[in-house]
């Protein structure tokens, strides 16, 4: 029996402590009995119970793994859907950013359009006098050329 470190065991001899020798012997017996109770038993029943309990614990093993499996699946699903989520997030941000960009482009186009139409007007102003003259010339010569078919056309000079 382990009495390591306990120097109080049996410090009171019978007579001085007031307990009978028989009581002290009984106490020793009681303590020995306690010790015997705790000794591992290798009986058939004990072994059988240990095996049964081991089976119970092991049968629960898959259930123990299940939460980890579910957690792993959730993590995989999240990782797999990350690109989609990123696109979705970008889509929202793009909607917000698209409005000023469109406005910029539109105003740019308008400015350019205005500049182009100004240029056309300027060209028209410049070209207008010449256009009037050529219109007059066209009116003077155009009637003969247009009225006479090529086969009937007269030579521009007299035949020799």
């Amino acid at each position, binding site marked *: *029996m*382990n009495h*390591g*470190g*306990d*120097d*109080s*065991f049996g*410090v*009171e001899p019978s007579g001085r*402590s007031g*307990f*009978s020798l*028989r*009581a*002290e*012997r*009984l*106490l020793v*017996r*009681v*303590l020995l*009995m*306690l*010790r015997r*109770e*705790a*000794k*591992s*038993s*290798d*009986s058939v*029943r*004990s*072994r059988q*119970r*240990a*095996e049964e*309990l*081991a*089976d*119970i*614990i*092991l049968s*629960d*093993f898959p259930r*123990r793994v299940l939460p980890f499996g579910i957690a792993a699946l959730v993590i995989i699903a999240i990782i797999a859907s990350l690109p989609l989520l990123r696109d979705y997030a970008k889509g929202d941000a793009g909607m917000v950013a698209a409005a000023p960009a469109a406005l910029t482009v539109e105003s740019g186009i308008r400015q350019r359009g205005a500049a182009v139409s100004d240029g056309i007007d300027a060209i028209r102003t410049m070209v207008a006098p010449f256009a009037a003259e050529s219109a007059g010339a066209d009116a003077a010569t155009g009637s003969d050329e247009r009225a006479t078919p090529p086969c009937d056309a007269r030579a521009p000079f007299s035949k020799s």
Partner: protein
Amino acid sequence: MLDPQTERRTIQRARKGDREAIAELIRAYQRPLEAFLFRLCGKSDLAEDLAQESFVRVIRSLDRFDERFRFSTWLFTIGKRLLVNHQQKMRPLPDSEVVEFRAGDANTPAAETIEAERAQRVSELVGVALESLVSPQREIVLLFHQQNWSVQQIAKELSMPEGTIKSHLFRARRRMLEAIERTGVRNAEELFR
């Protein structure tokens, strides 16, 4: 009980789900734990159930076991906690009767022999002696005398100074002697034959 090295190896195997290792741990500690719980609560069925529950919890949590400590310390702490929880749920405790006892295995033929009867008488005396102890004393006596733990080990487990443990042991023995003197000695003659 397993020696520390064997115990460590067995725990490592049990962690991987080795059935034989789990059964080995149970075989080694089932009886001591049941005896400890039985002497704390006085009911063999309850002790058996609590011991079983302790094993289930401890073996399921083997991944968290710190190998610097003894497996038995951890197991007994869990067992004690389960018993305390049970007692809190089931108050008031039906703990007044003298404890019943299984001398060895109840289904052995030896249970009918004179020796077994004598053992039963001593066992009843154990019950009487333990009944006389208050809560920390009973646990200390059981850990020291029944489980063979050292004073240092008990002090560490119960977070008490070693001197306090020794003092509890001394007072506990006096109380047990008083209880034995009162009730046990009268018809104890045959125990010494």
